[in-house]
Every structure is written in C-alpha cells, then in structure tokens.
C-alpha cells in the first residue's frame, strides 16, 4: 500500500506582502522521489523550505495552510523536531567553514550533543560519504577543512551531512546544478538507492534528471501547483497548457 508521508492543503507562503506560494495541495507518497519543476522564481525553493519550516527563518516571511507529516501538523510541532525528521540540501553548498570534512559529516550529531562512539562515528562518516559519492576523493584528507573542497565536492559533502542524520524525508534544492556529469550521475544513483528508505523531494531544472530519478513530478508556475502527476504521464501527456509549454521549451 502506498502511504502518504507529507501532505499540504491550501498552503500559502509570503515574503512580506509578496504572495509566492499559492494555495498548494499536494500529497507525497512514502519512499518515492518527487521532482519539483518550474520556471525560475516560481516558488519552488520557497515551497521546499516551507516543508521543514526553514521559510520562517527569513525575516518577514510567513505562511498559512496545513502541512502534515504523517498525521502531525508540521506547524504545530517544534521546528527542531521537524528539521530532525526532514533534512535539507541547499541550492548553494554551505559546509561549516570551521569544521573538518569528518566533523562536517557528523555535524548533526556533534553540534546537537548526541554522543557517538568513535567506531559509530567512523562508520557514519564512511557510509554517508560513500553514499554521496565523495568517499574516494576525500578519504585521505578527512581532517582538512570542508571549505577547501571544490563547489561540487562541497555540495556532496552537504548531502552526506544531511543523510548522516537519517531523516525520514530529504529535501534537495537543485543539488546537482553545480556538479559535473560524473558526480551528477553518482548523486542520481544515490537518490535511486535512498528511495527505499527515505522520501525525497528534489527541485530540478533538468527534465532528463526528473525523468530519470522521480516517480512523480510537480510543476509550479507563478506560485501555483499547476500539475502533479506520475512523471512519465506528466511528460508525455501534460494536462495543462502551461506544463506543455514548459516541457516543450516554449518559455523558460
């Protein structure tokens, strides 16, 4: 049975008076990959940040409507708890500049005061870095600062940091936009593998990527969720003319 893990109803988000996410209703099934697509500025990042309550950290940002994680309202839980269960990878890599690669990966435990044994730590670091396709490149320099890595490596480090916490849901905001084709392929492989245990929501501008990795695709336009369907269906048989225009490249 396909159970729903996240569902929003009549969800709106604002920057001050600027209404950027409009009345979004979406149900995200467990253990699936959802691609979020749409032209630049249509509110993809904003909607993603609403799911784990990162949106409210921006001064002046507000939201209303319901956002459910299983049967709990995300906006009635404490944000710390929400964010422990719903991890996030940002559009721009943001490793902690004061921490080594090793410490960056276990930052979620270390900084939260969750004590781990040395062997547990080593295992988590190796496992997370392997899954994010970074292990082979950094295994000999784990104690260098994370900011010495290239942009793409930093992004994979951030993915490792997020999955090390084993969240139930992982939100990824254009995680491969700074990566070369090879690391993009390994990240996509990772997403595919993670699907068995996690639920992934990934923002992407790359239709091939969406087609390759996602089960369902949501298409946003000017803050509205225009169409949401099984990926193959959405690409081959869009119901809405705006979706059609977008996937045929008639506007960007």
């Amino acid at each position, binding site marked *: 049975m396909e159970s729903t893990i996240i569902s929003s109803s009549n969800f709106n988000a604002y920057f001050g008076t600027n209404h950027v996410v409009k009345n979004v209703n979406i149900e995200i099934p467990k253990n699936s990959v959802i691609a979020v697509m749409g032209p630049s500025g249509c509110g993809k990042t904003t909607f993603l940040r609403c799911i784990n309550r990162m949106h409210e950290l921006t001064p002046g940002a507000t939201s209303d409507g319901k956002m459910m994680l299983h049967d709990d309202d995300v906006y009635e839980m404490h944000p*710390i*708890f929400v964010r*422990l269960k719903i991890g996030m990878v940002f559009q721009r890599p943001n490793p902690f500049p004061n921490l080594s690669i090793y410490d960056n990966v276990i930052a979620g435990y270390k900084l*939260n005061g*969750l004590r781990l044994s040395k062997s547990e730590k080593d295992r988590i670091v190796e496992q997370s870095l392997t899954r994010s396709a970074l292990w082979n490149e950094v295994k000999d320099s784990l104690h260098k600062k994370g900011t010495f890595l290239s942009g793409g490596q930093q992004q994979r480090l951030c993915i490792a940091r997020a999955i090390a*916490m084993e969240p139930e849901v992982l939100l990824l905001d254009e995680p491969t936009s700074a990566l070369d084709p090879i690391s993009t392929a390994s990240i996509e492989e990772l997403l595919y593998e993670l699907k068995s245990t996690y639920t992934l929501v990934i923002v992407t501008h790359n239709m091939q990527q969406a087609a390759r990795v996602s089960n369902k695709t949501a298409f946003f336009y000017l803050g509205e969720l225009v169409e949401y369907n099984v990926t193959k269906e959405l690409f081959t048989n869009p119901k809405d003319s705006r979706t059609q225009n977008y996937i045929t490249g008639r506007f960007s």
Partner: protein
Amino acid sequence: MQELTSQLVQKPSRVIVQDRKTKYTGRNIRWEGVFKRSLVITALSVLVLVVGIFITLVVQSIPSIKALGIGYLTGKTWDPVSDIYGAWPFLLGTLLTSFLALIISIPFSFAIAVYLGEYRPTGWLSGFLKNVVELIAAVPSVIYGFWALVTLVPLVRKLESAIGVAPYGVGIFSASIVLAIMIIPYAASLGRELIQMVPSSLKEGAYSLGGTQYEVIRDVVMPYTKSGMFAGVLLSLGRALGETMAVTMVIGNTSLIPDSIFSPGNTMASVIANEFTEADRAVYLSALIELGLVLFLVTVVINMIGKSIIKRFTHE
C-alpha cells in the same frame, strides 16, 4: 506491526537515532528560550547602564545645583575651604588645553592621514608609520604623564624662561602638548580611511586634466572628505576633553583662572581626579560630580555629532 518489525530488522541504527533525537529535543527547546532571553537581557543591560550613569550623575549633582544654581558654572573662584565653588577656572582650563591640543595635533594627524591614504597606502615605510600610530594610541596615559613630567616639563621651563614668562614648566601649555600627542592617532586613522574612500575616478579625472598631486589633494580629496575630517576633529576633541591622568600630572593643579597658556591650571577631569577623595562636604563632592555631569554631556554631544557625520559620510 509487521512494518515496524521489518524496519527494525532492516535498519536498527535508525530507530536508535530517532529515539535519541527525541530525547535531546526537549532539553534543547528549553535552552533555546533561556538563550534568547539572556541575549535580550544583555542588550538591555547596556542601555540600562548608560541611562544609569546619566541618572546617577544628575541625582548626585542635585545638592550642588540646588545650593549653587546656574552661577556655579560662571563663578570665578574655587575655594572649598571657604565654601566657595565656581567652576569657571576649570571650564576655561579644559577649553584652553583641549583646543590648543587640537590645533597642535591637526597638522600632524592630517599629514599622517594624507601620507597613508594618498601618497603611500602600502609598503614597509607606511607599515612602520601605521604601527607607530597604533603604539601612540596604546601607551597608557599615566606613562605619558610620567614621561612628560620628566622630559617635557623641563624643556617647557627652559622655553618659558627664554621668552620671559614665569618658568613653571607645568601648566596648560605642557598639558596641551601631551594631549596633542595622545589624540593624533584618532583623527589620523579616521582621516586615512576617509581619504581612501575617495573614488579613484574623481582623482583620475583631475590628473587627466593635468593636475599635480598637490592640486588633486587640495581640489578633489579635501573637498570630498571635508565633512568627515571635521568629524574626526570633533572625535579627537571628545577624547581631549575627557583625558585625565596625563593632564593631571603636568597641568600644575591650581584653581586660579589661567591668565596665559603658560599658566598652571586645572581641567574639569583633573580637578575631579585631585579632589574627589578629599571632598569632605556634601556640596563640595556634589560640585565635583556636577563637573562630571557637564563633562559627560559635552563629550556625549560632541561624540554623537561626530559619529552621525561619519555615518552620513560612509552611507553616501
């Protein structure tokens, strides 16, 4: 149930982690509130501190204000033994030393600012000069006072006998020189920053019209930085007015009205330093605190004006 068991078998570590996370969350939520509140309290305490300083000065000045009235500030005699309190000698002493120090310091701080800002912003020579300026600011004022007492005062005494005035050595002139040295760094480093903010397009424009370096400084750099330079002078004045120890040690400490810049005298700060612990009567003590209040208000106003000019300058 089936699902849970299968999950446990499949991913035991994950269940343990989730458990631990829940345990730590509660404690974290509590500390979050405590932390936010303590940030507010510390920010508030700074505000309370300043208001408290002002109120304390006012309250402690009340006996003197009541007993002596406004005439206190213009009264020409200070004779606590006979219960006569007039602050004019100290106001005059403060104004004389501060302005004289300012006038002496301006050519030097200006030259340093122009040298570091325009002629040679980098290189070892300017690095040396920068360090010298920083050290001048770092030397404690008692050491300035002590040094001046031993070396400067005898020099001034010689000068005074050469030009035929009473050779005290100590006095307003000596105090002004020490003060001038001490305040140079403030105007100099501010002036350097201001000069470096002059857009190079403006300067290049003037050079391309055939201007010499001096003319560019005079006609482009100076007009552009004028208001900021004025603010720098004001901030140095604020420093000079409040400086206590070095002045106290070389000004001669008399409560007579100075009749020339070579006379001994007292500033508001130096008379407080000298007499505060000896003030045995309520009005005496309160009169000294009223001087402190005047000093506080004057320096606050001067600093605020100076800083607001600089803020306006840097935001343009």
